């Protein structure tokens, strides 16, 4: 049943046909060019699954092993492709299981549309079987949400959902659809949403703010750029590079900004924040103009706010007006889309090199190399380090892999040491710090970009939070490379216990299962490495595999991640040991 548009010279008349609400949901997805969705069936969403069965040649539904996995897969899909990820679940527990992923997408600005089934509208509010107020529950963690109780409202609600999810500062949207609305028949037409009256996704850029910013940048002696995911979301990688090269400004990134500019770029001075690089943290408190682009001054980046860059004039390029002055007071706020703003400011910027200033970064890097990096990447002691595993993956992937991480020590090490040649190559849970994110996100990323090598790196803790998604890998034949850096500890919490709680290791030691046997139970090729001599060869075997591959690397049990800005300390108080 197709909706035909008859066009004559003057008018276009849409011919509609009666279809069910559930079929309309699937047709809306097709109209939005959705090809893959992640989900889990159940009572209140069954009519939609019945339609998905009919339309399986157009939309590939991926059955994850838990609804949380569906959201993280949709996130991984969105992060590597820049498109909207879609997750679908039933009412009640199906819907509540989506919440962690939705909250993660909200804080990390990931475009995602979640569709949930709901009990029939006459039962709403009656504590019906599998009824939960998912609109109420998801309100604080969604960019927008709504409940649909009539089939005729479905196309408009979904069109709006996709538009809101992807436009402006992206985010997750939830549409809850009652079962009677799924069964009801109505005249279907679909029109993409291009605006919502009360919503202004991209604030207008004031040219005078660009001029003021350019003036500050041109007169700065020690300018410093810090960029975030805004660069990737607005696809402003080339514009950012042009700016830093023209003005000769050292530039550092937040964890979600990683990979926007290749790691090897001479003006890329590394990662900001609690476990970021030494130079960018220390020199944040020495620069005279701090240029923040598409980042939101998270507390893990700023450390103690009262002592954060107080000497510097701050320029903030930002799409979300609510971020301006939220944490750090700005001198000049440039509202708008990062790509457009950077394009507009470039002609106003003078060429410069700031050689002496850049030299400072090099000097501090040398200190960090001696104290931290050398031992992480070229250890001489017994016991594998997480760093040397990442280094080996870099070497063998030539920096072309997409690295999907979970949360904890391995995440910090991976983000510190991974080499990225391509943008959208670092997929991780930044703001929410969701353990269990990595494995399902890697599945979504691999399915969105099958041509890319996708390496999932997890710790033994987070891996077991969504380990059941190995079933999804097996069923979907998703060629994800799964690395677990196993130290038999919840390593990051243990590190804090060691440093700040007098070595009291409360509930951080893990008695782990036979991970290789578990992977093999899902018919996934698996291997375990305990010795340095085996590492390179095992990673080679993994990288050469055309199918999914599981590699457990037993690393030193009590390794710590340094540098570290202790909680509540200033960024310049960063510790190297």
């Amino acid at each position, binding site marked *: 049943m197709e909706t035909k548009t008859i066009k004559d010279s003057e008018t276009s008349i849409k011919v509609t046909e009666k279809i069910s609400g559930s079929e309309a949901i699937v047709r809306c997805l097709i109209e939005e060019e959705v090809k893959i969705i992640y989900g889990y069936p159940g009572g209140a969403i069954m009519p939609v699954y019945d339609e998905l069965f009919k339309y399986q040649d157009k939309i590939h539904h991926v059955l994850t092993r838990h609804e949380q996995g569906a959201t993280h897969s949709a996130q991984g899909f969105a992060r590597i492709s820049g498109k909207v990820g879609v997750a679908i679940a039933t009412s009640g527990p199906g819907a509540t299981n989506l919440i962690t992923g939705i909250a993660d997408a909200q804080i990390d600005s990931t475009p995602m549309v979640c569709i949930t089934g709901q009990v029939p509208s006459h039962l709403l509010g009656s504590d019906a079987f599998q009824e939960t107020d998912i609109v109420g529950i998801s*309100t604080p963690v969604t*960019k927008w949400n709504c*409940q649909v109780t009539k089939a005729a409202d479905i196309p408009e609600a979904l069109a709006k959902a996709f538009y809101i999810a992807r436009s402006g500062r992206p985010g997750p949207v939830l549409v809850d659809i009652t079962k009677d609305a799924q069964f009801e028949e109505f005249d279907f037409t679909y029109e993409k949403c291009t605006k919502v*009256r*009360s*919503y202004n996704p991209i604030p207008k850029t004031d040219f005078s703010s660009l001029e003021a910013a350019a003036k500050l940048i041109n007169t700065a002696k020690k300018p410093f750029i810090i960029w975030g995911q805004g660069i990737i979301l607005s696809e402003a990688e080339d514009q950012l590079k042009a700016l830093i090269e023209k003005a000769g400004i050292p530039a550092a990134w937040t964890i979600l900004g990683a990979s926007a500019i290749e790691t090897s770029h001479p003006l890329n001075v590394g990662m900001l924040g609690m476990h970021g690089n030494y130079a960018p943290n220390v020199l944040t408190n020495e620069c005279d103009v701090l240029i923040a682009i598409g980042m939101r001054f998270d507390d893990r980046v700023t450390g103690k706010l009262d002592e954060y860059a107080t000497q510097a004039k701050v320029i903030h390029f930002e799409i979300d007006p*609510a971020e*301006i*002055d939220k944490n750090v007071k700005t001198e000049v706020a440039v509202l708008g889309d990062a790509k457009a703003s950077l394009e507009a400011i470039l002609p106003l910027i003078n060429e410069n090199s700031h050689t002496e200033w850049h030299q400072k970064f090099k000097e501090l890097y040398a200190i960090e190399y001696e104290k931290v990096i050398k031992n992480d990447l070229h250890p001489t002691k017994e016991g594998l380090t997480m760093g040397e595993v990442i280094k080996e993956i870099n070497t063998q992937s030539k920096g072309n892999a997409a690295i999907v991480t979970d949360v904890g020590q391995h995440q910090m090490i991976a983000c510190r040491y991974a080499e990225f040649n391509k943008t959208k190559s670092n997929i991780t849970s930044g703001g929410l710090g969701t353990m269990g994110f990595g494995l399902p996100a890697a599945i979504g990323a691999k399915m969105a970009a099958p041509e890319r090598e996708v390496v999932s790196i997890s710790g033994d803790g987070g891996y077991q939070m969504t380990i059941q998604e190995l079933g999804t890998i097996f069923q979907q034949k998703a060629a994800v490379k799964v690395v677990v850096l196993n130290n038999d500890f919840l390593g990051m919490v243990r590190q804090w216990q060691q440093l700040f709680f007098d070595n009291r290791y409360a509930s951080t030691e893990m008695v782990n299962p036979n991970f290789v046997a578990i992977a093999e139970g899902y018919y996934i090729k698996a291997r375990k490495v305990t010795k340095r001599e085996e590492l390179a060869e095992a990673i080679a075997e993994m990288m050469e595999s055309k199918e999914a591959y599981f590699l457990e690397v037993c690393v030193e049990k009590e390794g710590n991640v340094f540098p570290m800005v202790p909680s509540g300390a200033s960024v310049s108080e960063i510790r190297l040991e």
Partner: protein
Amino acid sequence: MNTKTRLYTISVYTENNIGLLNRISAIFQRRHINIESLNISPSEIEGVAKFSIVVYMTEVNIKKIIGQIEKQIEVIKAYYHSDENTIYQISGLFKIKSDLLFEEPQIQNIIKESNARIVTVNTNFFVIEKSGKKDEIVKLHEQLSVFGIMQYTRSGRVAITKDEMKISTLLESYNN
């Protein structure tokens, strides 16, 4: 900028949608801010609702709250005002035993002097209504308490700003 806590009225112009109240109140809840009073009504523009929210906050924080309210998809615009910049009123209702109206002649004087009005009288009770500033309602409450009040309630603040709000212009600019 003022970092002292003071009373502000927040005006929020919104689409009239189910769930928006939840979305807006959640922003205050997250920061552990108590809403002193809340009123939602139609506004001067057809189809546009207006929230009047009264809170004790610092100016630094209220600016952040305004940003987070405006960020909600169905919010058209949010403003904050100090008392000097608004004309505002609240209303109080007092239910009192009818006998007292005759037994205590003072009550009639209080009603007269406070510019309150009697809304209804029957054999059992009568109801007094008083609009004005909060202090005036509180004072009337104190005066009438002496005689015994059967029921008392006070509305949230409704406020109109001295400055022009330009919501229609804003809506037009969004539509173009």
